[in-house]
């Protein structure tokens, strides 16, 4: 089998799995899950074979040609795609296995696994697509599969509302993305990624419009509102789609199109990412739902990645157009740092989400951290793996997050001190809310019956945790990765841990401040310590979180729906009523008048006749 064929199989296997499940296995949940997991295994295996075999290729087949617009179905498997596909394959496989245990008692087993397979198909499609048009198709497809999976428990009104919200908010971003693709095609004559990299028009609008797509999918400000709500979906879905892969697709897409970037656009991207990172971290502090904390943490980390991408080249690029190669090289540092953090984040965030899934499963679907506590002894394996995840995300030295976060901080330090300060402060908050979550969930005494009777799940629930924990520990050592990934990793600034004293000290300091602060502040109690000690601050943070939701709700319920009602009303009253029926009425009046003349009385007709005759005579005689 040639590499191209292997890539095609990787893409089509999950589609086939979804089709088989939808057509034949709707009532056979067990078989459906087996098929789906098999497809996931195939993806993971093929992805690693392709990546580790150091196959790099591009293959395209012309799809259609419409009035000068030529589009192809193609695969671009470069270093970037190889890394992303491996991450998607490995994390996806872990989560499929976890789902086996987690969803065992769910009556709609088949629909769930069918949805996962559609998702894997779309996600692999995004990774492999060689042009923006094809990317957009899969982009929408992941949105749709995410819709299906968020709304899995659709009996809950909140779940089905969240699913709709996610799709429509994404669609808002996608409309910018679509415009960007149209504009890119219009000004460059092609949407092929490789062709674009060799020649394209420099414009600020194109990258910014394309970035809109990433803002929607990677949930950056101001379209971040859908992601916390998306936690209504089953926890493995949150881990796979709303933490490790789909939401990271926005960052991946940016890296794919980095050749189109111009400095001003990057500045916008950098600040969007930085603002999201800070905003989400502030929101995370007040959350009491274990998944919501992780959701905001995901938002914040995505902000880090977007900021890293935007930071890459801000200082150097395009100083002189005579040698674009220098610009290109420097620009890639952002790609390296963003993709590095994307990979490590995929490992430890998937771990944290699956850990929370294990906790939720163990506590009989209790999600409130203030009703947990004491799980350290009840669920030791979950506890230890979760601890590794927490340590990794807060940047504990020599774990995965430490390296990738340092790379971003280094970039920020080198390029923009303000961003550096904000990101460093955000890192304090990260450490604070993660340790808070960890302490409230696992330490102290159980604060509810569910927590008191918590138990560790089966093998399918724990094995993925262990695998992901190992990856979270080792994932930061770029030298451990097979040589085939050097294409991307060589772009990372200071990948082996920063030698820069300021960075190292800052990174250690922020972690310690946050962690110690959380230890000091939060007690394992049924209420939020911050709310008690500083109600004002707590209220302000809650308001900050609520504000965006309020605007969205206001817009949907009041502005959009009322405007639609108003238009409909005007349509009924004016257009359909007054004007159309009015015209008909006028015609009717004429008819009525004409009818009034015809009374059927001979005398009247004679008078009319005489009157007419007089009029006629008067006209003829020139009197009128």
């Amino acid at each position, binding site marked *: 089998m040639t590499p191209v064929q292997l890539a095609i199989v990787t893409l089509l296997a999950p589609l086939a799995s979804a089709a088989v499940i939808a057509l034949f296995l709707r009532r056979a949940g067990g078989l459906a899950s087996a098929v789906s997991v098999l497809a996931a295994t195939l993806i993971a295996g093929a992805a690693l074979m392709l990546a580790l075999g150091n196959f790099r290729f591009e293959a395209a087949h012309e799809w259609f040609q*419409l009035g*000068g617009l030529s589009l192809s179905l193609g695969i671009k498997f470069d270093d970037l795609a190889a890394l992303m596909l491996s991450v998607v394959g490995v994390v996806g496989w872990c989560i499929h296995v976890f789902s086996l245990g987690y969803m065992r008692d769910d009556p709609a087993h088949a629909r769930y696994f069918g949805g996962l397979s559609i998702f894997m198909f779309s996600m692999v499609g995004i990774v492999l697509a060689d042009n923006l048009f094809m990317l957009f198709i899969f982009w929408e497809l992941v949105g*749709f599969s995410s819709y299906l999976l968020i*709304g899995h428990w659709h009996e809950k009104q909140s779940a089905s509302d969240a*699913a709709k919200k996610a799709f429509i908010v994404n*669609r808002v971003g996608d*409309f910018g993305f679509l*415009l960007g693709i149209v504009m890119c095609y219009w000004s460059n004559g092609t949407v092929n990624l490789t062709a674009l990299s060799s020649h394209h028009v420099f414009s600020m609008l194109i990258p910014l419009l394309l970035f809109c797509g990433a803002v929607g999918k990677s949930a950056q400000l101001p379209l971040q509102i859908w992601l916390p709500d998306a936690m209504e979906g089953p926890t493995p879905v949150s881990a796979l789609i709303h933490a490790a892969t789909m939401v990271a697709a926005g960052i991946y897409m940016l890296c794919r199109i980095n050749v189109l970037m111009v400095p001003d656009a990057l500045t916008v991207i950098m600040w969007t990412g930085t603002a999201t990172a800070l905003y989400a971290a502030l929101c995370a502090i007040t959350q009491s739902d274990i998944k919501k904390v992780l959701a905001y943490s995901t938002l914040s980390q995505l902000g880090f990645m977007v900021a890293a991408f935007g930071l890459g080249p801000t200082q150097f690029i395009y100083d002189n157009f005579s040698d674009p190669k220098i610009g290109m090289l420097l620009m890639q540092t952002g790609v390296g740092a963003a993709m590095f953090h994307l990979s490590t984040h995929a490992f430890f965030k998937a771990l944290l989400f699956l850990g929370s899934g294990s906790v939720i499963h163990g506590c009989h679907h209790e999600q409130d951290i203030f009703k947990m506590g004491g799980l350290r002894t009840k669920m030791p394996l979950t506890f230890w793996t979760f601890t590794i995840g927490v340590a990794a995300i807060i940047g504990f030295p020599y774990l995965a997050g430490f390296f990738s976060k340092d790379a971003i901080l280094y970039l920020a330090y080198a390029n923009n001190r303000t961003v550096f300060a904000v990101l460093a402060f955000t890192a304090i908050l990260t450490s604070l809310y993660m340790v808070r979550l960890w302490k409230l969930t696992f330490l102290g005494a159980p604060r509810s019956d569910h927590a008191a009777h918590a138990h560790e799940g089966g093998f399918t629930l724990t094995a993925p945790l262990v695998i992901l924990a190992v990856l979270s520990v080792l994932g930061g050592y770029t030298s451990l990765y097979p040589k085939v990934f050097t294409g991307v990793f060589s772009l990372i600034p200071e990948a082996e841990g920063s030698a820069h004293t300021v960075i190292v000290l800052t990174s250690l300091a922020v972690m310690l401040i946050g962690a110690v602060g959380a230890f000091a502040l939060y007690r394992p109690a049924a209420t939020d310590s911050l709310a008690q000690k500083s109600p004002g601050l707590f209220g302000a943070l809650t308001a900050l979180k609520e504000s965006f939701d309020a605007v969205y709700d206001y817009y949907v319920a009041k502005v959009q*729906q009322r405007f639609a009602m108003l238009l409909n009303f005007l349509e009924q009253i004016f257009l359909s009523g007054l004007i*159309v029926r009015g015209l008909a009425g006028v015609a009717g009046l004429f008819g009525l008048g004409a009818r009034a003349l015809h009374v059927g009385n001979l005398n009247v007709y004679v008078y009319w006749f005489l009157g007419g005759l007089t009029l006629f005579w008067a006209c003829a005689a020139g009197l009128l």
Partner: protein
Amino acid sequence: MTTLSSFTTGLPLLSVLIFSPLVAAAGAALIRSERALRWWTLVWTTAIALLSLPLWWRFNADTADFQFTEHTAWIPWLKIDYSLGLDGISLLLVLLTTLITPLCVLASWRYITSRVKEFLICLLVMETAMIGVFSALDAILFFMFWEAMLIPMALLIGVWGGPRKIYAAIKFFIYTMAGSIFLLVALIALRLQTGSFSIPGMMGQPYGATFQLWVFAAFFISFAIKVPMFPFHTWLPAAHVEAPTAGSVVLASVLLKMGTYGFLRFCLPITPHATHVFAPAILALSVVAILYGGLTALAQSDLKKLVAYSSVSHMGFATLGIFVLNINGLEGATMVMINHGVTTGALFICVGIIYERLHSRELAAAAGIGRFMPVFMAFFGVFCLSSLGFPGTNSFIGEFLVLAGGFAHSKLLVACAVPGVVIAAAYMFRVLQRVAWGGTANPAHHELHDLEFREIVTLLPLLVFVFWIGLHPQPFVHAMHATVVHLLGQVGHALPAAAALP
């Protein structure tokens, strides 16, 4: 001079297609049993659909000339001829018509219980008129088919319609009739200038600028009502809501296309100068239609009304594509016409299926049926996604091309039109969500039975086309390409009056 330049067998294929439904209708008049009538019509319309396939095979897509032409003198002293022919655009529309009609028969299988014979005869007469409109090359022949369509359609609405059927039928009739008068005036004016009623003969003549403006205006009123463009659209929701399923399907899939077809056949090639003059205003109206139709659809609680308003929005894309006057726009517009025929026809069939089971078209009543009708839900879901222009389905190709064409014309225009895509997602997901997952308050839905074989057969061809056009649009675009290029040549590219919107 009588020529029959069809194909080798010498069979005048278009005439056969046009008059077979009439023969079938005559035969139907003699049949008593309702069951036999239904089968009779189904077999005939299916046979006609199969018979139209040679059009597709034998069509030469490399030329913009009219093909399958037939030409016979009809009323010589008025220079009215019986003249038929197809180009790339009308070919697709004829095929759409022959595809949709048997599906209408199937969709009415149980829906129509009274006056079955008359209903089927109306449907068959409709088919004759519809194929006739798309293949006529003589203005009077065209007008005759155009008018002939009104009567069976008004009957379909007025006899087999809902509670306010008479109002809807009269509104439909008067509205379109009012438009037709202008059409007739324009055609006679052109006859006086050119000396014949031949449509190809009217193209490319050096008419005066003022004359063109008046002729265009008359055409515009007539076609804009048919499309329907904002603000001439109010007959559409009324007609759709009251019409029986088959009526809605024919109306949405084929009749609306006649407006845009009219623009392409008459306005652009005959009055190119006026087209350039009026284009900015029509583009503005198209954008208004896209947004207005979408927003109004968002406010509807009646499923049929919702789909009707979404039609206004979709047809806005079609007129937008036509009047940007470039290759992507025109090809996109033609694709939108075909796609709308497939998708909206399918949606109306779906609403009809809901109505047959619940005897209500209210969204609230239909909430939650998806749980008990998974097969239906799969079909309905695909058609909803197609309607909102989901990538990989047919509508996306059309809308993307229109947007690409619009972009080359004016960025502002596209920036205004694209929110329509978001609104489409909003109203379609509102429906999809409610129907699939909504309302646990409808326990009676337990007794609903899922699609039967006949209904699957009705929807399946449309589903095939959703994906066929969505994933492999090349053959469709190829068929019309030469025609569109020729049309662009006729309308001319850069006239001074063609100043783009800012």
